[in-house]
């Protein structure tokens, strides 16, 4: 079968699996909503402060939610031997792995994107910044999945890889966090954000091209 057929078969398979194990979708989303709803309660009746830190709150929560969901990316395939079969396929493993990452983003990243405008309004973010918030999430969360995949691939073979995974991946998440939350903040005060958006786009394309290959190599090491 052709490569594109295999690529879409992997995506379809992972989406069906996610649909049959709904907690996988619900967990990061619930975490995202909970953290954001708890902030106003913790800060108290200071709408101005809340409005000022809203971009940061949303982006930090999105980042932590993405990290929380990372382990499920390759875990079950590793445990039941499906990963071996994927890597043995005559098709390039990096493309198949990219399919898995895309499916993972559709399941864990996209729901955050959809619910975020509601939560942003809840935090008092000005309406004209919502578009930029969505745009940064659209550009940024796939990067979180792509970079995270390298970390997961390296640690999936370890029994307790969670700690190392956060240490590996978090520093690489920082640029996305800085540029994205900065863009939303600037948009809130009505300033142009072209530079930040362009940088996020270039980060996304770089991750899209560069991440699948080391992920596939790391997976080959992990199943050893």
């Amino acid at each position, binding site marked *: *079968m052709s490569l594109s*057929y*295999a690529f879409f*078969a*992997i995506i379809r*398979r992972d989406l*069906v*699996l996610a649909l*049959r*194990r709904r907690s996988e979708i619900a967990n990061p989303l619930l975490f995202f909503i909970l953290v954001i709803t708890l902030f106003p309660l913790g800060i108290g009746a200071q709408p101005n402060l809340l409005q000022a830190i809203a971009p940061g709150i949303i982006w930090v929560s999105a980042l932590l939610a993405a990290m929380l969901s990372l382990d499920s990316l390759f875990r*079950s395939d590793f*445990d*039941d*031997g*499906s990963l*071996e*079969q*994927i*890597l*043995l*396929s*005559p*098709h390039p493993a990096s493309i*198949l792995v990219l399919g898995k990452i895309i499916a993972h983003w559709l399941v864990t990243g996209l729901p955050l994107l959809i619910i975020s405008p509601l939560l942003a309004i809840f935090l008092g973010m000005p309406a004209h910044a919502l578009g930029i918030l969505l745009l940064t999430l659209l550009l940024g969360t796939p990067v979180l999945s792509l970079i995270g995949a390298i970390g997961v691939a390296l640690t999936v073979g370890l029994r307790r890889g969670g700690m190392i995974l956060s240490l590996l991946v978090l520093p690489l998440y920082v640029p996305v966090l800085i540029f994205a939350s900065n863009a939303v903040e600037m948009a809130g005060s009505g300033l142009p954000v072209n530079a930040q958006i362009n940088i996020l786009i270039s980060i996304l394309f770089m991750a899209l091209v560069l991440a699948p290959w080391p992920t596939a190599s790391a997976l*080959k090491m992990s*199943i*050893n």
Partner: protein
Amino acid sequence: METKPTCLLKGTDLSCIRDDRVLFEGLTFELVSGQVLLLEGKNGSGKTSLLRILCGFREPDAGQVFWCGDAINDSQYHTDMAYVGHLDGVKKELTVLENLKVSLALGRSGQYSIQQALTKVHLADYDDVLVQALSAGQKRRLSLARLLITQNIVWILDEPFTSLDKQGIALIEILMSEHCANGGMIVLTSHHDIDLYGVDVQRINLS
């Protein structure tokens, strides 16, 4: 399946060291179309390690594996090889049919259609059953059905008879004989003594 008379799986001077223990060294073998290589040896003697070396998952600590004259990483080996290991490699949340469709998408379509393969492994009426509802033996037969729907020459099987009943074992032996008769070759480990009629079986004892 088209037969390639030149196909030859060759291991030269292979050795494997795990945690400072030499599992085997200086292991050399040659396997041609129609032959079976049976690895014997006690637990922990390196049977599975050798299979994983032959799959390309592990690098041998010395020596090299060749496929049709080229090192396995530089050749078409991965298109010609299929592996069924300890783990079944099937998703328990998917149905039998969905699992095989994914396997088919990942490989090249082979001699049998999915329905024919399921009939061959006696799972014909189970195509829309979730794998988690199957018994261990049925799961094993499902993972072996994967070999039939994709096109491959070398089968690498790690304890293929685990959790199969007598009937299941006989069935797999028939499939293996057919594969060899069609010009395929098989490398397997087994505690069960295999009974293949008219097939050239090489044995390597790793203990």
